[in-house]
C-alpha cells in the first residue's frame, strides 16, 4: 500500500479513514471505523491511521497490535474486575479473625465455610491479590495502557494539527449535527464568527471556510490520566524492592527501651506509658449509643514515646543515646523521625511486670515475716530474705491455667496471669514447705504448712504494638494519582467542540462535532446563529434501534 493523496492535495499515511486535512472519507478504508454501514462518520481519533491496524507482519507487530486494541484492554479490565470480586467473597488470609479457633488457613476455611471454603483455599483465593496471575493481570492492563496510548496519541496529535478549516462537503454532511441553508445574508457569517469568538472559540477562516474550535486540550486528557496510572503501577513495582520500602513491627512494654528494628541499631524507642481511654458511658450525647453497644467504646489508643539516636556506636560498648523525639503516638497521628514513620497498631493490656509477696505465719497475727519481689521478666531461682527465710522458685507459669489432665501449665508466653510454686525454707531449716500462689489462688499443697505466702503488691503494664515504616514510594503514588486526576478532569470536565461553516453558492453548510456534551455545543450554535438566516443544526444521530 502507498500513501493516500486526497483530492484536497494532502498526503495521508496509509490506513487513514478521514483525510487529515479536509476530512473527506477515503474510499476503501471506511470499513476500519465502520463508516460503510452508517450514515454518520465515526470521528474517533479523527479517522487517523492507527499504525497497529496497518502492519501485521512480524511477531513484534502482532504483539503490538494485540495490546493496542481497546477491546483487549476492556477484556483485561473485566477479568480483573471478576477476579477482584472472587477474592472478596471470603476473607483473605490476613483477615482471618484473631478469635478463630484455628488461624491456619488450611484448617480455617474448611472449618468455617465447608466444602466451598476448602475449594476457595485450594484454588489459592485466600491470597488472591498477591497471586502471580492477579499480578500478571494488572501488569497486562499496564502494558495495554502504554501501547494503546502510544498507538493513538501520535496520529491523533498529527491529525488535529494538520486539520484545515476547509472541509469536504461529505465530511460536513456526515456529521451528527448538520444543517444546510440555501441563502444567507451577506454579513451573517461575520456575525456568527464574532459571536463564536465571544464564546471563546478559536476561529480560523480559510477563503470563507470557517473552523471554530475550543477545548482541544481536553483530547489529551485520556493520555495524561494513563500516564498517571502508569506512574502508579511503576511505584507499585518499586515498592517491592527492599530499598524503597521497610515494614517492621515491634512490641514494646511500658518502661522498656528497645532498639527499633530495621534501623540497624541507630535508633532506640522508649515506651513511657500506654493509654487506653474510653468514651464516657454517661455522656449526654453518646450515652445511648454506648449502651446499645453493650460495652465500652474506645476513644484513644496512645503510646507516649521517646526516640533516641545512638551516637559513637563502638561495638561492645553501650551506645550514648541522644533524645531526638518525644511525642504521643496515636491512631491517625503517626510519629515521624529521620526517614521512619511509626504507627500505633496494637496493644496488650494487663501484663504483670513484678509481684511482691509476704511471708506470714499461719497462726500468727498476720505480721509479715519477710517480703520479696519477683521481676516477672527475669525471675531469679531463689530469694534470700533478711529475716533468714529462703524462697526457691520451683515452678513459674507466666499465664497460668489448668490443662486437660489437671496439671498446672502456662497458656502463653506472657505474664498475664502469673502463677508460682514456691519452696519456702524457714530460717535455719532444710525442709521446705510447698506453696502454690497466683492471682486469687493460694494453695497449701500438703495442708500442714506453718507459713503462708500472700501477694502484697504488684505492678502491671501494657505493651504497645508499633509498626515501623519507611516508604519512599509514597511520593510516586501521590504524583501518579495527581496526574491521573488532572487527566480525568481535563478529559471529562472540558469538551472538544468544533463548528464548521462551509459556504455554498448562496448559502452555507453548518456542521459541528464534539466528543461529549452535544447539548452544550447545540446551545453554543443556537446563540451564535440567533437572528441570522442560518438554519439550526439537526441532530442526525442514529441510536441503536
Amino acid at each position, binding site marked *: 500500500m502507498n500513501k493516500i493523496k486526497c483530492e484536497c492535495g494532502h498526503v495521508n499515511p496509509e490506513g487513514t479513514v478521514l483525510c487529515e486535512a479536509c476530512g473527506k472519507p477515503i474510499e476503501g478504508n471506511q470499513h476500519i471505523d465502520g463508516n460503510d454501514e452508517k450514515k454518520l462518520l465515526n470521528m*474517533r481519533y479523527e479517522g487517523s491511521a492507527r499504525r497497529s491496524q496497518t502492519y501485521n507482519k512480524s511477531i513484534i507487530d502482532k504483539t503490538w497490535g494485540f495490546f493496542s486494541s481497546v477491546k483487549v484492554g476492556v477484556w483485561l479490565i473485566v477479568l480483573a*474486575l471478576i477476579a477482584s470480586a472472587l477474592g472478596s467473597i471470603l476473607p483473605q488470609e490476613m483477615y482471618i479473625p484473631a478469635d478463630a479457633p484455628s488461624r491456619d488457613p488450611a484448617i480455617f476455611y474448611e472449618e468455617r465455610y465447608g466444602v466451598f471454603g476448602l475449594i476457595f483455599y485450594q484454588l489459592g483465593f485466600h491470597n488472591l491479590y498477591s497471586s502471580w496471575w492477579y499480578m500478571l493481570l494488572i501488569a497486562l492492563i499496564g502494558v495495554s495502557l502504554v501501547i494503546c496510548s502510544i498507538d493513538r496519541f501520535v496520529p491523533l496529535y498529527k491529525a488535529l494539527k494538520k486539520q484545515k478549516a476547509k472541509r469536504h462537503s461529505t465530511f460536513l454532511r456526515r456529521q451528527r449535527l448538520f444543517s444546510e441553508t440555501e441563502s444567507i445574508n451577506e454579513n451573517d457569517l461575520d456575525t456568527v464568527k464574532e459571536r463564536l469568538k465571544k464564546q471563546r472559540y478559536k476561529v480560523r477562516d480559510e477563503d470563507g471556510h470557517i473552523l471554530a474550535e475550543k477545548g482541544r486540550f481536553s483530547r489529551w486528557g485520556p493520555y495524561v490520566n494513563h500516564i498517571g496510572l502508569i506512574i502508579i503501577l511503576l511505584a507499585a513495582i518499586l515498592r517491592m524492592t527492599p530499598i524503597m520500602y521497610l515494614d517492621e513491627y515491634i512490641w514494646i512494654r511500658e518502661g522498656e527501651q528497645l532498639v527499633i528494628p530495621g534501623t540497624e541499631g541507630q535508633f532506640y524507642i522508649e515506651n513511657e506509658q500506654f493509654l487506653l481511654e474510653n468514651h464516657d458511658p454517661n455522656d449526654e450525647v453518646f450515652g445511648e449509643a454506648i449502651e*446499645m453497644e453493650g460495652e465500652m467504646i474506645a476513644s484513644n489508643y496512645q503510646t507516649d514515646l521517646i526516640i533516641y539516636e545512638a551516637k559513637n556506636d563502638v561495638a561492645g560498648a553501650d551506645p550514648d543515646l541522644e533524645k531526638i523525639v518525644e511525642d504521643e503516638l496515636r491512631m491517625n497521628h503517626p510519629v515521624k523521625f529521620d526517614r521512619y*514513620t511509626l504507627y500505633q497498631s496494637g496493644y496488650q493490656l494487663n501484663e504483670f511486670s513484678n509481684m511482691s509477696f509476704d511471708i506470714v505465719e499461719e497462726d500468727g497475727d498476720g505480721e509479715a515475716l519477710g517480703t520479696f519481689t519477683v521481676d516477672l521478666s527475669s525471675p531469679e531461682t531463689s530469694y534470700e530474705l533478711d529475716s533468714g527465710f529462703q524462697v526457691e522458685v520451683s515452678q513459674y507459669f507466666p499465664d497460668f491455667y489448668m490443662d486437660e489432665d489437671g496439671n498446672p501449665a502456662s497458656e502463653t508466653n506472657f505474664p498475664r496471669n502469673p502463677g508460682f510454686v514456691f519452696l519456702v525454707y524457714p530460717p535455719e531449716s532444710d525442709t521446705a514447705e510447698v506453696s502454690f500462689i497466683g492471682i486469687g489462688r493460694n494453695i497449701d499443697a500438703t495442708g500442714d504448712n506453718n507459713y503462708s505466702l500472700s501477694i502484697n503488691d504488684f505492678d502491671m503494664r501494657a505493651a504497645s504494638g508499633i509498626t515501623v515504616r519507611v516508604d519512599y514510594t509514597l511520593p510516586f503514588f501521590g504524583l501518579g494519582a495527581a496526574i491521573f486526576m488532572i487527566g480525568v478532569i481535563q478529559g*471529562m470536565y472540558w469538551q472538544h467542540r468544533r463548528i464548521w461553516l462551509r459556504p455554498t453558492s448562496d448559502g452555507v453548510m453548518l456542521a459541528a462535532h464534539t466528543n*461529549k456534551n452535544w*447539548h452544550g455545543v447545540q446551545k453554543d450554535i443556537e446563540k451564535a446563529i440567533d437572528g441570522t438566516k442560518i438554519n439550526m443544526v439537526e441532530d442526525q444521530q442514529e441510536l441503536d434501534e
Partner: protein
Amino acid sequence: MSTSMLLDISNAMLFTAFILYLIATFFFGATIRDKRSKHKKGIAGKIGITITIIGFLAQLVYFITRWMASGHAPVSNLFEFTTFLGMSIVLAFIIIYFIYKTGVLGLFALPVAMIIIAYASIFPTEVSPLVPSLQSYWLQIHVITVSLGQGILAISFVAGLIYLIRQIDQTVRSKRTTWLEIVLFTIFLFIGFIVSTSIFNFMDYEATFEYTEQNALTTTEYHLPAIAGPAGGELMTEGAMEPWFEAPGWMQGEDAGRKFNTVIWSFLTGTLIYLLARLVLRKRIGKAMQPLLKNVKPDLLDEINYRSVTIGFPVFTLGGLIFASIWAQIAWDRFWGWDPKEVWALITWFFYAAYLHLRLSRGWHGEKSAWLAVGGFAIILFNLIVVNLVFAGLHSYA
C-alpha cells in the same frame, strides 16, 4: 441549645425532607403529561424542583444540626452514611436538572433517593462516638466525596433506566424485556421494604431476642415479626411470633439475623405488590410505563447517562480511591489493604472505566450504555448492602 434539642430538630428535618421529596415526585410525575414541557418548561417541573430544593435544604439542616450535636460529621456509621448518600443523589439530581431541565428524571431520581434514606433506617440511628481509627478530618473528606461521586453516578443509572423503559421494544417478550422487568422488580423489593417496615413501625411491633455473638450474650430488637431469628437466638418477648427458622451462621456482623429478616420481609412484600401491580395492569410493568415516557427524548437521556458518568467518575475516584488511600495510610499504616469495601470500590472503578472505554472506543451508545449504567449502580448498591451485611471488614463500624 442543648444537644438533645439539636437532635430533635435534626430528626424532624430529615423526616421533613423525606416528605418533601415525596411531594416533589408527584409534581415531576405531572410533567410527563405536559406535552409542551420540552420547550416551555411546564409549571409542574418548576414547582417540583423548588420543593426538591427546599427538601434538600431541610436535609442539609438535618446534617448540620447532627454535626453540631455530635461534634463530628454525621457520616460515621451506616445510618449516617446511607442517609447522606440519599442526600447526594438529590444534590446530583438538582445539578443535572439545571443543566438539562428534564422533569422526568426527578420522577425516578427522587424515589431512588427516598428508598436509600428509608434503607438507612434499619441501622441504629443513635449518635455514636468515634472509635480512634475514625478520629480524623479525613473521615468527612473521604466519605463526603465518595458519596457525592456515587450520587452523581446514581443519576446515570436513573437516566439509563428511563432510557430502557422508553426504548426497549415491548411488543414481544424478549431477553431484554425480561431483564428490564427484573430491574423493575428489584425496585419493587425496595418498595416492599419501605411498606413492610412502615406498617410494623406504625403498629409499634417489637420482639427481643437473645443470642451469642463472638462469645458475648447480645440482645437484638426486631421491629418486624421474625421469620428468620438470629442464629442461636431465643425469643424473649411474650406474645411475639416465634421465628420459622434461624438465620444462617455465616452471616456476620452485628444484628445479621435482624437484617436478614428484613430482607425476607422486603422480598415477600415487594413480590406481593409486584404481583398485584401485574394483576391490575395485565402486562409487564415496563410495558405499562412505556407510553408515559414517549415525550422524553432518548438521545437526551443517553447524554445525561454519559454526562453523569463523566462528572461522577472523577469525583468517585478522588473520594473512593485517592482520599481513601491517603487516610488509610495515616490510620492503618498502609494505603491499600484489600479489605472487602476497598476491593468493591476498586471494582466500581474498574466497571466505570470499562464503561468509558466501551463508549469512547467501541461505540457503545444508547441501549448498551444504559444497561451498563444500571449495572454500575447495581455494583454501588452491592457495596452498600451486601458487603456491609455479609462481608465483615474494616468499614463495618455500625
